[in-house]
């Protein structure tokens, strides 16, 4: 086991968060949104760009060098890009914490964003930037072995394990339904949620088309143009800033094996989060029973169920029953995605989940507040099941 965990745990704090609105209209430049969110996070922290010396940007949309050039960050000492698709934003927190804990950098900007609507697969004209995106680690394999058989979309690849999961455990469809409906209810309490004013009923959900069995349209995340950012700094420095510091208590990333092919994994239902979650909790010296809320990467409702099990909330196959019986709303036994998630808040690469976790722990969420929240968990999920997790707590 890793023996230096305690050094990384509680070494740094999230001191500023920022996000743009979610857009679904005119084409946008993702780089511009990422810069906007970065400035908002720095303003929130009460820091100047000159204070930043580490940057972790998303793959493909803007480089750390460009962010530094645009913001006037003149002493960039640490930059890294995580290649885990939707798991990248939360995995980047671990990397930022390592940089701060080791003294490589003292204030790190983690900024994510994209043109998720502008460059959606069904867009009449996708921007050229989409074609310049770096190759995802699995891209060649997907083209060679999945695409000829009609599986080109993430939901079609994830369908391989969602279908097996539903078959093996006879999972109740009520689980995914409750994930979707609860997300929408939480969005109604959240300023900035794209679907804040669009309630979702059980009837609407059940009459929405199936995209890939058993995933319905309302189980699918929104495609939005947006960005969100968080600023982290050392725990000492955080004490001098005006917001209540939100401490990074633990974090980890995990990769299923082989990460570049879903089909040939010994157990297709083992995600990266299954290995990452225990390591993060060990680092934080906490258990799930210490946690007040979960912000779970919800590209699809069913992927939330799988992650709840990977986090250890229930045995394999038990998440749907938990969601239905115990509840994941603000009044449930484990509130999940209290901003509405990717399903109803918007698709901020999961960085909007991080922003929400920080706001909850600051006790700054108004009617959407998890009362008295002290510890929160954020997960990331991406590519073909890569996972990441971060545990935050109030100072």
């Amino acid at each position, binding site marked *: 086991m890793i023996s230096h965990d305690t050094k990384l745990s509680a070494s740094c704090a999230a001191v500023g968060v920022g996000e743009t609105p979610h857009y679904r209209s005119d084409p946008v430049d993702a780089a511009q949104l990422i810069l906007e969110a970065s400035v908002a996070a720095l303003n929130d922290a009460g820091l100047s760009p000159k204070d930043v010396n580490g940057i972790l940007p998303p793959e493909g949309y803007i480089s750390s060098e460009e962010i530094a050039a645009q913001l006037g960050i003149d002493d960039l000492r640490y930059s890294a890009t995580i290649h885990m698709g939707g798991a990248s934003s939360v995995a980047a927190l671990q990397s930022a914490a390592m940089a701060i804990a080791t003294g490589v950098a003292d204030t790190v900007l983690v900024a994510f964003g994209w043109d998720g609507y502008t460059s959606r697969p069904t867009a009449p004209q996708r921007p050229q930037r989409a074609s310049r995106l770096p190759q995802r680690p699995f891209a060649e394999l997907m083209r060679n072995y999945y695409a000829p058989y009609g599986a080109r979309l993430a939901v079609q*690849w994830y369908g391989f394990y969602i279908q097996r999961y539903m078959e093996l455990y006879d999972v109740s469809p009520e689980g995914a339904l409750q994930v979707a409906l609860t997300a929408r209810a939480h969005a109604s309490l959240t300023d900035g949620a794209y679907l804040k004013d669009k309630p979702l009923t059980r009837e609407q959900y059940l009459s929405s088309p199936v995209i890939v069995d058993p995933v319905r349209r309302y189980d699918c995340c929104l495609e939005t143009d947006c960005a969100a950012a968080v600023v982290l700094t050392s725990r000492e420095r955080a004490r001098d800033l005006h917001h209540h510091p939100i401490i990074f208590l633990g974090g980890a990333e995990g990769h299923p094996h082989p990460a570049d092919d879903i089909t040939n994994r010994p157990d297709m239902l083992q995600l990266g989060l299954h290995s990452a979650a225990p390591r993060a909790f060990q680092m934080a010296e906490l258990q799930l029973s210490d946690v007040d809320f979960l912000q779970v990467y919800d590209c699809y409702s069913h992927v939330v169920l799988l992650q709840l099990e990977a986090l250890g909330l229930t045995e394999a196959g038990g998440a749907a029953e938990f969601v239905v019986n115990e509840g994941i709303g603000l009044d449930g036994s484990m509130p999940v995605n209290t901003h509405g998630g990717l399903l109803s808040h918007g698709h901020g690469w999961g960085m909007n989940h991080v922003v929400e976790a920080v706001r909850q722990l600051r006790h700054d969420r108004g009617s959407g507040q998890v009362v008295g929240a002290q510890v929160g968990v954020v997960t990331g999920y991406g590519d073909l099941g890569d996972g990441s997790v971060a545990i935050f707590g109030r100072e």
Partner: protein
Amino acid sequence: MNLTERPVDVYQPKSFGLDMDFYLRAAASGQVHVQQCETCANFQHPPRFLCSACASKHLNWQAIQGAGTVYSWSLSHFTIDSAWTDSLPYATVVVESLEGVRFVGTFSGPQNDLTIGLPVNIRVESIGKNFAYIWFDSISETSKENG
């Protein structure tokens, strides 16, 4: 629904290296071939430079026995691939061969028959020289046809 013929314009990958070897062999021989490690006898797919069990670089291509069981599938009611639009809803199926490696392909039997563990034969349809389409045929269907 039953898909006995593939869409005419299925995407044919522009493979290179080991992936091209995989398709060239299958197309030429009419049989799926996979890598087997000379050192530890491990079978693996998709092809890689090293054995994923022991990191040996000594890998040979072996024809598989041609049978397996359904491991999972993805049933699409929506597609962005125009070649597949007329085939909706269609299943993209994962089968585990007797050798323990899994392949993605198309099931020729009724979609409603799909279940984990369903025994199937693994068949190759050569499309030109460079590509081979993988089919999974229900074993009971095959025996009916044969007799």
